[in-house]
């Protein structure tokens, strides 16, 4: 009978979930990047076309979407630096769990600051 491997260090723990988060945020960012290059390319079509499409980024719902996108980017960035530390720093693998908590702490601080600034600009009376 196949049984669940007992006492794994990795499965279901910080290492696995950070890997899952890194994959999901990576895919989300990649698909946004494809769209973002296409919308920016409209500057080459005409000033009106670009300004019309970029106007779609300026409504309240999109402001929340942008905040979610930046949340994905910031996690992917900080966790990516953690992966580099795991790979290249002698004690990286030993401290990978602690480094994930540092990543999440920095992520919260960065996102609180970004959200206050971006949402007040985007949603504030213009």
């Amino acid at each position: 009978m196949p049984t669940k491997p007992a006492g794994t260090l990795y499965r279901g723990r910080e290492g696995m979930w950070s890997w899952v988060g890194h994959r999901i945020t990576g895919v989300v960012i990649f698909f946004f990047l494809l769209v973002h290059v296409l919308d920016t390319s409209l500057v080459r079509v005409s000033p009106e076309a670009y300004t019309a499409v970029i106007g779609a980024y300026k409504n309240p719902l999109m402001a929340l979407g942008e905040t979610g996108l930046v949340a994905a980017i910031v996690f992917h960035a900080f966790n990516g630096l953690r992966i580099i530390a795991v790979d290249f720093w002698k004690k990286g693998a030993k401290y990978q769990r602690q480094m994930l908590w540092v990543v999440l702490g920095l992520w919260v601080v960065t996102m609180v600051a970004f959200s206050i600034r971006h949402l007040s600009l985007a949603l504030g009376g213009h």
Partner: protein
Amino acid sequence: MTATQIQSPRSGNDRGQSSSGDSGRIAPQYRRNGSARGNFEMLAWLFMRLSGVVLVVLIFGHLFVNLLVGEGIHAIDFGFVAGKWADPFWQFWDLAMLWLAMLHGTNGVRTIINDYAEKDSTRFWLKMVLYAATTVIIILGTLVIFTFNPCPVVDGVQLPGGFCPA
């Protein structure tokens, strides 16, 4: 059990010349170099880390300048982009961001396809679609950055912009 077919790495060489490099000590199918793929996977792994560090700087700078300074997102319109790309500094910044982000993202999605698509033909076609999309986006973006005219004349009228010649 087929364990008897597996030879010890140290006994695989009839000639017993293990002192002449690694060629006799590691069975061919486990060797990590000298294959047809060369060092591609190692270079891809290294590229992810090097481009990742640069992208953190490029993208954080991009988000800061475009979303957090001045009026933020409300300032973004044609004139905003034109003003940035009138300066070779931002042309190079955005070009580097385009190429590194697209190659970094493409290699990431390639890894995910290799992990989850089990059928050979599915894996092949998903990657062909991926590479086609990547090629189109990189070429399009590069052309836009370099063929863009920040000072277009619309209906015989020069659009306003402090960076345009009068």
